[in-house]
């Protein structure tokens, strides 16, 4: 990520002196999980732009130096565009002149979105505490994810960007035995704390290889056991999808099974095609006692496998078109970029194609390159 694409926020908006019951107009970055994402709008208003002396500085290439101004009038927020190049939007509608920014509405500037909240200082304190708790939970989930692997017969890299503070995606990979490798990606329906807790529970069992009476080398057995253990009736109505694969380096055979999930994609070294690596089984947890099928594919030397959650391709692009997996296949088969990792290249390709603002779903992408 280049420095110009990084987003930093410097704010001169200070917390104002107020009685505990007084309500303050706040602009809260909704795609930022830091505890300093909230900016209080004072009586003098705030200017938003890419560089100081703006009060809220967003280092985003789509934000103009002096982008828009938010003021208080009759205890309402009003927003004016300051002749920005890419425009200012309120709930998706481009601002012309000066328009109200109602409580709960979203102010969109470049790739960033700020929500108007009207909170008491007590609510702000409470919200800050919740933010800190969610940040700790998010850090815990991130810590469970495996580090990228730069050496060995299989090199891996990944990008994981939850669309909410806690997502429902999780993945892992590693060795099951000498020459036997495993990789998996699970996607719990929905996001938030409930989905994250189920994702962590499943991931922990897979990490520990601790499924009872199950050969972890058999994707069909693994899915069957998970389906037995995680019926949605016993999981607050949550179910999940999974891709689970086991690769034997001696035979170059990859055994895999999908539980309700789209296929992974295998790209041979000549990058001529993206071969689906998936089969059809029901989502995990919907029906008790069902069996799951697995399938196999030979992995050619130098091939890459792309394993991803549906949030990677289920986006609405800037023309309003809904993407599907063939759009992602097209992006994957585009030439690689010298000095840029595949996961980073694809994340930025998708991010640039999608409508501004937070992605609609969790973005989890794992790329594995085979010797």
């Amino acid at each position, binding site marked *: 990520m280049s420095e110009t694409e990084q987003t930093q926020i410097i704010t001169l908006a200070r917390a104002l002196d107020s009685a505990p019951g007084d309500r303050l107009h706040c602009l809260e970055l909704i795609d930022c999980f830091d505890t300093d994402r909230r900016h209080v709008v004072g009586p003098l208003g705030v200017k938003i732009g890419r560089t100081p002396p703006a009060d809220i500085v967003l280092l985003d290439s789509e934000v103009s130096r002096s982008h828009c101004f938010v003021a208080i009038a009759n205890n309402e927020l009003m927003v004016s565009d300051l002749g920005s190049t890419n425009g200012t939007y309120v709930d998706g509608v481009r601002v012309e002149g000066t328009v109200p920014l109602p409580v709960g509405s979203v102010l969109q500037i470049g790739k960033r979105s700020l929500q108007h909240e009207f909170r008491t200082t007590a609510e702000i304190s409470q919200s800050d505490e919740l933010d800190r708790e969610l940040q700790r939970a998010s850090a815990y989930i991130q810590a469970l994810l495996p580090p990228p692997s730069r050496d060995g017969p299989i090199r891996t890299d990944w990008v994981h960007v939850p669309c909410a503070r806690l997502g429902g995606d999780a993945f892992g990979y590693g060795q099951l035995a000498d020459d036997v490798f495993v990789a998996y990606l699970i996607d719990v*329906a929905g996001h938030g704390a409930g989905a994250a807790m189920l994702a962590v529970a499943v991931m922990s069992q897979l990490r520990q290889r601790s499924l009872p009476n199950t050969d972890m080398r058999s994707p069909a057995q693994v899915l069957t056991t998970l389906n037995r253990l995680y019926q949605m009736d016993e999981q607050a109505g949550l179910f999940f999808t999974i891709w689970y694969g086991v690769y034997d380096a001696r035979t170059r055979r990859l055994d895999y099974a999908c539980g309700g999930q789209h296929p992974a994609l295998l790209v041979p070294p000549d990058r001529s095609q993206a071969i689906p690596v998936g089969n059809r089984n*029901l989502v995990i947890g919907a029906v008790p006692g069902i069996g799951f099928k697995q399938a196999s594919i030979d992995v050619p030397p130098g091939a890459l496998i792309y394993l991803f959650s549906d949030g990677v391709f*289920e986006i609405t692009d800037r023309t309003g078109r809904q993407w599907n997996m063939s759009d992602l296949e097209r992006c994957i088969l585009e030439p690689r970029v010298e000095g840029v990792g595949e996961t980073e290249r694809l994340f930025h390709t998708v991010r640039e194609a999608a409508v501004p603002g937070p992605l609609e*779903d969790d973005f989890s992408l794992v790329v594995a390159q085979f010797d």
Partner: protein
Amino acid sequence: MQMQISDVGGVTKAALFGRLDSRSVRDDDQGEAYFFAHIPKEQPAVVDMSDVSFIASLGVRMLIDTARALDRSGAKLALYGANDNVMDILKWAEIRQVILVVDTEAEAVAAVMG
């Protein structure tokens, strides 16, 4: 997401419109809670998906939940008219193991009455 629910000769017909994404499915007024509450569980139902432009995993859950609730009282659920993008997602979810998936309303009604 918006929906219209009607009764067609003893079969509940639910026509869904728009995106079944996470936000719309969780909507208090027109989301899964409303859908689930307004589908009688004791009679068969069909879902018209022809005006659904997108379905996320929570949308799939909404349909599966409903099918399971109907199944508990011996009734069936069928859906029809899904576009290619939506059908791709339903196919990967292998939803056919829980819900009848057909092309037309007539086929759907016949399937749930059979």
